[in-house]
């Protein structure tokens, strides 16, 4: 009675507050033996939740069964087939005391069964797609794991496409995602630890690592940081990322994300730890280094000579994406001595009609470019092409024809744009997109001196940066010459004997030395 009174009072509260108060005040509330009381209680809890189904099935005069589940999350077909049909068939013979056991046994054949006496556990079970089975007169409830909700099928990830390499990508379902990883690393050393994060969302989060290969300190850090998260809901891995990263105010991402299981597995084999979150195809990988921001999955599938070449192009391009507009502004306004005479005359003649200072021109064009890019992402595909046509016409042709923008500036901005697309990790490229602007201002105010100061500032910041205890620039700074095989070049696979230093745990050897040549 006391319980019911309490409930009456709470009815006024919102569901969230109710759940809060449950978990805080009465953690040990038990299930009563009165089925009607239980039903009332649960209906109170789930009041106004139209998707929660209460099915009361009378078996005989004395006995009734209560199924509680969330419509759409559970597959109730096996429930009907395995429990209700046989129960109906043998209804008369059944005795109350063995009934629970009978149901449990029937269900066990098709699903994981958990029994609980605790109300909180029961509610959590219902919310996490279990079917709760309560029996008249019993204080134990059964939770059958009959998950059966709609899933997206495995598709090629659109954010990271490859020419050569596996085409499967993660989906929104955590279990599908873990299976994709497990299929690639069939070892008992592949550990998947589960967490539940989010007071309301109760999102399943898993950390995956390979025992001994991943460093214990990193795993411990990941665990601790995940456990300390207090948040109402986790919708995407970004929520987790911002909680676990080391330097939240840095423009550089310290956590890598990917949609590709092959990238995750490659990282796991290097000794990294990945964090999977239910309901999103994006998976986090820690620790991240500067260099992994410039590596693409295909770097490991194509032959190493080509990859080394591509990497150098990429390094060049990403410097261009950061510096080209600034250098153009600095050189034309401060140091025209540095430009070859003929080029200087061409630039001067192209700029003759332009009414704006170079700095302003550069700023305007960069902003326009960012605007085009942003507009292109958000718009529906059918309108997207219209944006690019308008952009190309307005910026590329009309602005130059009208003499508002000089042609060299269009070339500079276009080259910068193309260069920035060559950075394989999207979130890494954004850091450079942002940093381009302060350096541009420095270049406009102080010339190359300003550019150099900006670069020094970025470098100091990068050297200072760490991701889960791993220096961001390792193995270049702190330098470790033996481990440079996957940084400036991509050495042939058979020569990469070791896992990356500072990332990997005890087991540092990937390939035994010298073996590959024997046959």
């Amino acid at each position, binding site marked *: 009675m006391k319980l019911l009174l309490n409930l009456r009072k709470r009815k006024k509260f919102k569901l969230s507050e109710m759940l809060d108060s449950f978990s805080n005040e009465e953690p040990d509330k038990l299930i009563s033996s009165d089925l009607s009381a239980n039903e009332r209680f649960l209906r109170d809890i789930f009041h106004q939740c139209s998707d929660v189904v209460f099915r009361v099935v009378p078996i005989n005069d004395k006995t009734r069964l209560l199924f509680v589940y969330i419509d759409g999350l559970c597959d109730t077909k096996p429930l009907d087939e395995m429990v209700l049909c046989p129960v109906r068939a043998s209804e008369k013979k059944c005795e109350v005391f063995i009934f629970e056991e009978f149901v449990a046994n029937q269900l066990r054949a098709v699903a994981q069964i958990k029994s609980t006496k605790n109300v909180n556990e029961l509610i959590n079970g219902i919310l996490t797609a279990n079917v709760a089975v309560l029996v008249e007169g019993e204080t134990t409830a059964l939770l059958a794991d009959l998950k059966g909700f709609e899933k997206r099928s495995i598709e090629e990830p659109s954010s990271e496409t490859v020419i050569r390499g596996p085409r499967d990508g993660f989906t929104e379902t955590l279990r599908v995602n873990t299976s994709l990883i497990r299929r690639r690393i069939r070892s008992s050393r592949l550990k998947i630890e589960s967490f539940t994060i989010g007071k309301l969302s109760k999102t399943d989060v898993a950390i995956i690592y390979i025992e001994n290969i991943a460093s214990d300190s990193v795993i411990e850090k990941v665990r601790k940081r995940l456990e300390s998260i207090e948040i109402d809901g986790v919708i995407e891995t970004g929520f987790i990322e911002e909680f676990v990263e080391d330097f939240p105010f840095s423009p550089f991402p310290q956590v890598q994300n990917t949609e590709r299981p092959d990238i995750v597995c490659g990282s796991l084999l290097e000794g990294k730890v990945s964090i999977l979150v239910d309901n999103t195809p994006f998976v986090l990988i820690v620790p991240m280094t500067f260099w992994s921001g410039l590596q693409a999955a295909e770097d490991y599938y194509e032959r190493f000579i080509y990859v080394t070449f591509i990497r150098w192009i990429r390094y060049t391009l990403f410097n261009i994406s950061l510096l080209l507009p600034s250098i153009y502004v600095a050189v*034309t*306004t*401060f140091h*025209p*001595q540095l430009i070859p*005479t003929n080029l*200087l*005359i*061409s*630039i*001067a*003649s*192209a*700029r*003759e*009609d*332009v009414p704006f*200072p*170079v700095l302003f021109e550069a700023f305007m064009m960069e902003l326009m470019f960012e605007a085009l890019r942003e507009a292109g992402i958000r718009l529906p595909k059918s309108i997207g092409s219209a944006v690019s046509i308008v952009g190309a016409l307005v910026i590329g042709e009309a602005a130059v024809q009208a003499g508002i923008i000089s042609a060299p500036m269009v070339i500079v901005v276009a080259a910068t744009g193309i260069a920035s697309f060559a950075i394989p990790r999207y979130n890494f490229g954004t850091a450079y997109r942002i940093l381009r602007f302060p350096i541009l201002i420095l270049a*406009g*105010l*102080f*010339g190359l*001196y300003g550019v150099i*100061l900006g670069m020094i500032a970025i470098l100091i910041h990068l050297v200072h940066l760490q991701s889960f205890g791993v220096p961001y620039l390792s193995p270049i700074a702190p330098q470790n010459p033996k481990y440079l095989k996957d940084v400036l070049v991509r050495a042939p696979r058979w020569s990469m004997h070791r896992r990356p230093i500072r990332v990997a745990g005890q087991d540092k050897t990937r390939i035994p030395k010298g073996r590959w040549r024997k046959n």
Partner: protein
Amino acid sequence: MIKRLKICLILLVCMFLTTGCWDEREINDRAIILGWGFDQNEEGDYIGSAQIVVPGEVGERSSGQGKGYIVETATGKSLLDVTQNLQRKLSREVFLSHQKVIVIGERLARNGISNILDVYSREPELPIRTNFFVLKNGEAFDFLEVPYKMEDMPSTAALKMFQSTAGPESTTFKDFLEGASSEGISPTVPILEIINSKKEKEKDTETFRLGGRAIFNQDLELVGFLSYRESVDRLWIINKLNTHKLTTNLLGEEGNVGIMGMNFKSKIQPIIQNDQVEFHITLSGTGVVRENNTALDLKQPKNLQIIERTFNKNLQDHMISTITKVQKEYKTDILGFGQSIHKKYPRKWKIWKKDWSKKFSDADITVKVDINIERTGVTGSPLHLKESEIQK
């Protein structure tokens, strides 16, 4: 933490405020000067003339009407004074860093150019590696006005002409200053001449060409000119001649032979006897016959020897006449003979260096030329000759 931030902020502000001069200027606010001319008027003031790019008249956006440059002049007591006065005529700031050539009028050169040199090594905006010419028989201003069809800017044309003919020798201000400051050799500067490309004396047909070299004495006054051919002799003696095409008439034959000379070497041996110096100059080189207008069959070694002998003789004669001209007429050692004494007889040099030009002009000189013809080209005798006409 706050303290650290404060220190960082102060350091940051220092970094930006203690940078020295702030020279931000848009390209279109600069008057890009490509060629610079120096003259002197009767009062002794310097006249600077500048060939300035007009960006609106060059490139794709131009209407094709203008020349692409203008020439402006100003007078002053020094280069700085001249630029200061020039600036008053220009809407854009004078920008001297892209000067391609500096041309010095003959009158200024004869009066001496030592008063205008320092600024080129001191003023940061002026490039010390600008090439540097003397205009024979004229004012530098006239040169800058001469149009040149092949290049957008006539100044560039002068520079390219020089680069395509002079081989490895560069004559930038830096080289000139080196030559002026070193002992035992006097500096020389290439010459530009304004000529008429056609016979009619019209302004349109005026163009310019590269001449020989202007000779400066140790006081940096112009004393005379070497013709183009004589300046090649000079290059050979100072060991800077790379390749050169040589042609000579053969004695007793009709027609001439042309060779492509290369691997030119020279050796200057000073010999001092009774306080009198004598120079033995040994010049060597190899050649490939590129042209044979005689009836000689070059497959015969004896015919080759005839050619070699003729070449040696002719080159030797020319060399002696060049050296004598330098010695007797100009009395200026531009051939580095003093340096060879400095190397071989350092003590003697200390005594002699004061009146070296006199000693130099009194010195006896013997020249030995040794051209070695290595190849004769594809055929022995000219192909158009009949068998009977060929001299075996």
